[in-house]
C-alpha cells in the first residue's frame, strides 16, 4: 500500500515537489499577484484609506470563515451562519435598552444556542451536518424576522458606534477583533489537544472514537464556537451599519465563508485545517470583487471570475491529492 503510493513520487520528485509547493501556497501566490496588479494598475490602491477599507470589509466573512474552517476540518459544514448573524443582529437591537454589554452578551448567547442545536443534531442525533444546519438556516432566518417583526431597526448606541468605527493606532477596532479571533483560533488548532481532536475526527471519525477522542463533546464545542463567531460577525456588522435588518444581514455569507476556507486549502473532506490560508482565501475573494469593481467591471463579472477561481483552486489542490 505505502510502497505503491511512494513509488511514483520517487520517479518524479522534482515535478511533484513543485506541484506540491504551488498547491500548498496557491492562495498566497494568487493574493500576491492580485496585490501586485492593483499596485500597478489601480489608482489609490496603496493608500491607507483603501487598505483600511478592504480590511474592514473582509472582517465579517473572515471571522465566520475561521469558525467554518474548524467545522470543515471535522468533515462537517455549517450552512446556518448567515441566519445566526441575523438572529444576533435582531437580538442586539431588541436588548439594546438594557445597555450595550447586556445586548452584546444576549446576541452572542443566542448565536451559541443555535450552535448548540446544530451540535446536538450532528453529534448526538447523528444527523448529517448539511441537513441539520440547513434546517437552522431556514428556521433561523425566520426566527430573526419574527424577533424583529420583519422590520429594519436603527441602532443608536455610543458603545456600538465606537466598536463599529473607531480606530486604535489607525487600525479599525473591528479589524483588531478579527485578528484576535484569528490568533486564538490559530493557537487552538495548532497548540491544543482540542485542535488535534478536530483534525482526528475529520480524518477518521470511527478511528477517533476507538482512540478515545471525545468525539461528541468536540463536535458540540466546534458547532457552538462556529455559531458564536457568526453571532460576533452579526454584532460587528450591526455596529458598523448602525442598523439591524434581519432580512438582509448575512444573506448567503455561508457560501462566501465556505469559499474562503476551500480556496485557502482546507479540503471539504476534512482532516486538515489551515487558518492562515482561510484568511488569505477570504482576502483573495474580497480583493477580486474590489479590483473588478474599481476597474468598472460589473457585479456579474465578479461572480463569474470568483466561480472560475474556486474551480481552479480545487483543481490545483486535486492535482496535489492525485500526485
Amino acid at each position, binding site marked *: 500500500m505505502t510502497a505503491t503510493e511512494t513509488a511514483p513520487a520517487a520517479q518524479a520528485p522534482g515535478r511533484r515537489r513543485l506541484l506540491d509547493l504551488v498547491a500548498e501556497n496557491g492562495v498566497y501566490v494568487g493574493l500576491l499577484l492580485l496585490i501586485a496588479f492593483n499596485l500597478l494598475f489601480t489608482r489609490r490602491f496603496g493608500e491607507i484609506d483603501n487598505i483600511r477599507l478592504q480590511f474592514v470589509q473582509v472582517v465579517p466573512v473572515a471571522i465566520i470563515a475561521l469558525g467554518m474552517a474548524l467545522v470543515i476540518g471535522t468533515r462537517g*459544514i455549517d*450552512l446556518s451562519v448567515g441566519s445566526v448573524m441575523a438572529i444576533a443582529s435582531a437580538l442586539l437591537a431588541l436588548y439594546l435598552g438594557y445597555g450595550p454589554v447586556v445586548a452584546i452578551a444576549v446576541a452572542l448567547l443566542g448565536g451559541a444556542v443555535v450552535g448548540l442545536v446544530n451540535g446536538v*443534531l450532528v453529534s448526538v*442525533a*447523528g*444527523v*448529517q451536518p*448539511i*441537513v*441539520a444546519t*440547513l*434546517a*437552522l*438556516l*431556514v*428556521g*433561523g*432566518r*425566520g*426566527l430573526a*424576522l*419574527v424577533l424583529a*417583526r*420583519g422590520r429594519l431597526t436603527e441602532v443608536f448606541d455610543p458603545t456600538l458606534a465606537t466598536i463599529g468605527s473607531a480606530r486604535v493606532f489607525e487600525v479599525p477596532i473591528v479589524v483588531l477583533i478579527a485578528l484576535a479571533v484569528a490568533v486564538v483560533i490559530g493557537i487552538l488548532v495548532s497548540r491544543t489537544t482540542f485542535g488535534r481532536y478536530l483534525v482526528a475526527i475529520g480524518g477518521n471519525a470511527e478511528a477517533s472514537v476507538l482512540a478515545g477522542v471525545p468525539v461528541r463533546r468536540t463536535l458540540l464545542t466546534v458547532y457552538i464556537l462556529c455559531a458564536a463567531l457568526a453571532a460576533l460577525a452579526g454584532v460587528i456588522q450591526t455596529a458598523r451599519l448602525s442598523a439591524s435588518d434581519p432580512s438582509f444581514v448575512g444573506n*448567503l455569507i455561508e*457560501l462566501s465563508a*465556505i*469559499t474562503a476556507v*476551500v480556496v485557502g486549502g482546507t479540503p*471539504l*473532506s476534512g482532516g486538515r485545517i489551515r487558518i492562515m490560508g482561510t484568511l488569505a482565501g477570504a482576502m483573495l475573494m474580497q480583493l477580486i470583487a474590489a479590483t473588478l469593481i474599481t476597474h468598472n467591471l*460589473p*457585479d*456579474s*463579472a*465578479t*461572480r*463569474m471570475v*470568483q*466561480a*472560475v477561481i*474556486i*474551480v481552479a483552486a*480545487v*483543481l490545483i489542490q*486535486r492535482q496535489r491529492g492525485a500526485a
Partner: protein
Amino acid sequence: MTAMATAGDVGRASGRRERVAARLQQGGALVVVVVVTLVASLLFGGRFASVDNLLGILEASSFLGIVAVGMTFVIIGGGIDLSVGSLLALSAVLAAFGSQFGSVVAVALPLGVCGLIGLVNGLLIARARLAPFIVTLATLLFARGLAFAVSDEGNTIFRIDPDQAVIALGQGSIAGIRIPILLAGLAFVAGWVVLNRARYGTAVAAIGGNEEAARLMGLPIARVKAAMYVTSGLLAGLAGLLVAARSSSGQSTIGVGLELQAIAAVVIGGTLLTGGFGSIAGTLAGVLLLNVINNVINQVGTLSSYFQQVVSGVFLIVVVLVQRYLTREQRL
C-alpha cells in the same frame, strides 16, 4: 441449537420491524401531507379545500417539483447540486431574452445553456473528481453572474410578447389543468419509471450506495454521474422556462435559495443524503408538503409569513430525526 433458533427469531422479528421502518420512511411524508391537508380542510373549509386553492398549491409546487426530480437523482447518486436556483433564474432570463427571436429560440436557448452548465458540473465532478458541493457552488455563482450579465446587471427585465407561442407553456391549460402542473406530473412519472424500472436508475443508486463496488461491477461511473448533473441542469432550465412563460418575463433575481428548498423537499421525502437510497414519490410528497404548509400559514391571516420559515425549519429537524431513528432500526 437453541441459540441459533433464538437468533433466527430475532432476525425475523427485526426483519418485520425493518420492513415497517422502511415503509414508514418512504411513505411518512405522504402520510403527513394527507393529514395536514385533511386538518387544514377541516379548519378552513372551503377556503382551503376548494378546487381553485388546491390547483393553486399544485401550480406553486410544479416549478420546485421539476427541480426536485433532478435533485433526487443527484442525491441518490451520492452528489448534490447547489446550482439549480441560479440556473432557474438564468433560464428565465434567457427564455425571455430569446423570445424576441421567436418561440423556438426561447425554448432552445435556456435549455441548451442550462444543459451545458449541467455538463460542466458533471465533467468536473465525474472526470476531474472534484467535490460536488464546491463545483456546484462555483456554478451557482457563475450562472447567477451570467443571468445578471445578460440582463444588464438586472436592470433590464425582458418581457415575452403575449402572442408568442411559448407563453402557452406557462399560461395555457389542458382540460382545466395548467401546463406547468402537467409537465411536473410528467417529470415525476418519468423520474419514477427511470429510477425504479430502468437500468440507469439502478446504476445511479448503486453508485450512490458504494461507488467502489459499482466500479468493480463494471458500471460506467463517469457517464452515469455526468448524466445526473446534465439532467438536473436541464430540469432546472425547464422550470425557469416555465416561470418565465408564466410571468411573461425573465428576472435575474428569482430562485435564490431554491436549491436549499429542493434539497429540503428531497430529504423530507425520505431520500438519504448519504446516497444510494431514495424515492421519487417521497420527493413529490416533500414538495407538496412545503407548499401546503406555506398555503395553510397564508390562510391563518394572523400569522406572519416569517413563521412559515420557522415552521419549515422545525419540520425539517423533526423529519430528519425521525428518519435517523428509522434508519437505525433498519440497521439492527
